[in-house]
């Protein structure tokens, strides 16, 4: 028994997707999505039309949850937490993150881009390390501070 059989996370629970789209395009399907916007991890159900449009969202949905589901259907977004090097600091690293999410497919690209970065201590919390990365409107920002050694 795989995990996905138990919890069809992010997978369509009806078979109205993919190759069947043309024939069954007018039929609705249900999709269950676990919201990642906060640690509550609400399970939100949504009804999709045969073309990936949202007909209805139900479950325990707040404003963030609705935004999340809309993005998850069209362009899944994720936050990247990682760290970058610090020179002359009390610690060799400072944690960084993208306070706003980036497209899921670009996570590893940004992770690789951070490996060549080296900041000079002292580093303050909330300091912008990369501004508007690749024009996506998302900054990479420190989430901790490092004092100078």
């Amino acid at each position, binding site marked *: 028994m795989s995990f996905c059989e138990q919890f069809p996370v*992010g997978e369509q629970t009806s078979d109205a997707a993919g190759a069947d789209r043309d024939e069954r395009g007018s039929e609705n399907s249900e999709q269950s999505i676990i919201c990642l916007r906060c640690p509550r991890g609400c399970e939100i159900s949504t009804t999709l039309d045969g073309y990936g449009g949202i007909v209805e969202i139900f479950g325990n949905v707040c404003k963030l949850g609705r935004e999340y589901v809309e993005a998850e259907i069209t362009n899944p977004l994720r936050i990247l937490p990682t760290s970058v090097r610090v020179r002359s600091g009390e610690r060799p690293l400072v944690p960084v993150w993208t306070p706003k999410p980036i497209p899921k497919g670009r996570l590893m690209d940004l992770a690789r881009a951070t*490996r060549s970065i080296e900041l000079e201590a002292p580093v303050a919390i909330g300091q912008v390390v990369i501004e508007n990365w690749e024009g996506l409107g998302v900054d990479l920002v420190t989430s901790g501070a490092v004092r100078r050694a």
Partner: protein
Amino acid sequence: MTCDTSYDVIVIGGGPAGLAAALSARAEGNVRVLLIERNDSLGGILPQCIHNGFGAVIFGNDLPGPEYAYRYQEQVEAADIDVMLDTMVMDLTPERDLYAMNATHGYLHYRPRSIILAMGCRERTRAQIRLPGSRCSGVYTAGTVQRLVNIEGYMPGRRFLILGSGDIGMIMARRLTIEGAEVVGVLELLPFLTGLRRNFVQCLQDYNIPLHLSTTVSNIIGGQRLEAVETVKVDEELQPIPGSTERIECDSLLLSVGLIPENELSLKAGVHLDPRTGGPLVDSTMATDVPGIYAAGNVTSIYDLVDYVSKAGEVAGRHAARYALEHGTGNGNNATAGRDASKAGAMVAIRPGENVGTVIPQRVRIDTSGNEEVTLMLRPNALIERKVTVELWDGDRPIMSFRENYSRPAEMMVHTLRAKQMQALAEAHEHELTVVIQ
């Protein structure tokens, strides 16, 4: 060595519970507060938890761990609270004699009017789960690797296998992948995920890391360094299924197999522990059964969200300060257990029943004034994927109930008692009630 009796409240441990406790104790009145931390910085485990997922309850924001800790640290530094870093508490007595040492002052002796235990927890190790095989290097607890990668800047392997689907294991699977290592999979002995499902999505699924349920490690192979791990499938009784062994090549094995409250000091102080939680028996003011000694956070029971650890710390700090104000004249230890018990008021114990693993607090101090908010934290021990009813039974009759959307061992149920429910507790016939999930 002279005994320093000038502190009203001493907090042991500068993690999320201790930081919140120190702040709320100080805010309660004119009390002198000392926070003792064995590490060289405050924040406990949070500075190495660089992922987001903290602060939704307290700050209404999804923050990385270091930022959550920073917000509390800033407040502690601004408040009139003494902080002693790099200091290890060595001994604690029921009379609240506290012995500590550090490299600057040597051996120290304090006798505060109240104490808050906020030592947190430690990871279960290889020895505690009796993993067979070679004692080669390359077998780590997940938190150790988290510290190496996120704080020390050191990558301790190239190809990782992770045992245990708890949150730390899944978060480290993603973290190692982001830093360029290969994670070949996550094994889980139980037939279900033990961590939060959001972490399965954002840490494993998003990075194409496979999860193997009902699977564990049956052998560790290697000379100086780990070379491979043998895995085996288990049946419903968690017994190995013959012929299901597989060999997985890897140079590192991460263990994410549970956390244990750290209570050596609590035991020295004569505090009684709950065998279910592994932490002190506490009442709704976070008081232990030793007068003047309070406890909060993972030292009492393993929480899944730091926000509730901070909240428990706040409660402990407030009541520890009140205790100090009621008992303190600067003359040191003149409070006795008997005097305190006389004003303790009614107490109702809550015992875990069907489908409930643990309850924090284990006793509720009856207070119908409406001034005290009491929150019950229930850890289910059964996976029930439908709406459930949580009931509190007084002998053979239920006196209160509430609904939850599901029952999952990975997620604590959080329930704040309403005035009417507190009243129902006050009117209970039995001294011990049973809480069940149905």
